[in-house]
C-alpha cells in the first residue's frame, strides 16, 4: 500500500530534529501526506491500528486527488475505503467526500441528499452525518 502509492521518508527525532521544526511536528508518531508539489494535505497525529491507518492513507489519497480536481480518482479512493474499511473511524468521512466528489464531477446534487440519508442510517453518531443534515429533504 505504502510503496504502491507514496514515496516514503522517515524522520527520526534523534537523527533529524530540524525536520520536526520545519514541518511543525510536535508529537510522535506523526505522519504527513504531501502531494507531489510538497504541499501538506493530511496530518495524522498519534497511533492508529493497522486497518485505521490504511483507511487513513486511502482517505489521504482521496483528498490529494480531490484538491487537484481529479474527482473520479477521489471518488474511487473514498469508495474503496467505504467498501473495505467500513468499520473504521474514517469510513463516515469517506462516505461524505465520495458523494461530494461525485457531485463535483457531475453536478448531480441528488447524490448529496442520498448520502445524507446513508450517513444518518449507517453512522448516525458521526460528525459527518451532522455535516450532511442540510442535504436532507
Amino acid at each position, binding site marked *: 500500500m*505504502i510503496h504502491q*502509492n507514496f514515496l516514503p521518508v522517515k*524522520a527520526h527525532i534523534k537523527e*533529524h530534529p530540524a525536520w520536526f521544526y520545519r514541518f511543525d511536528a510536535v508529537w510522535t508518531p506523526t505522519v504527513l501526506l*504531501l502531494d507531489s508539489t510538497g504541499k501538506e494535505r493530511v496530518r495524522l497525529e498519534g497511533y492508529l491500528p493497522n486497518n485505521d491507518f490504511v483507511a487513513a492513507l486511502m482517505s489521504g489519497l482521496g483528498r490529494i486527488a480531490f484538491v487537484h480536481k481529479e474527482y473520479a480518482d477521489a471518488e474511487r479512493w473514498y469508495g474503496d475505503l467505504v467498501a473495505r474499511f467500513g468499520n473504521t473511524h474514517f469510513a463516515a468521512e469517506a462516505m461524505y467526500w465520495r458523494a461530494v466528489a461525485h457531485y463535483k464531477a457531475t453536478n448531480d446534487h441528488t447524490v448529496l441528499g442520498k448520502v445524507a440519508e446513508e450517513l444518518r442510517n449507517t453512522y448516525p453518531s458521526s460528525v459527518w452525518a451532522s455535516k450532511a443534515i442540510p442535504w436532507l429533504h
Partner: protein
Amino acid sequence: MGVNWSRDVDQTLAAAKEQFRPILLDFSAAPA
C-alpha cells in the same frame, strides 16, 4: 512486508515532483 524508507526529505521532495507522486513523511521517536 517492510517499507524501504528514504532518510532524505529534500531528495524525496525532488523525486516526488519528478515522478508526480505523493509523499508519506513519518516522524518517529521509536527506538531503531
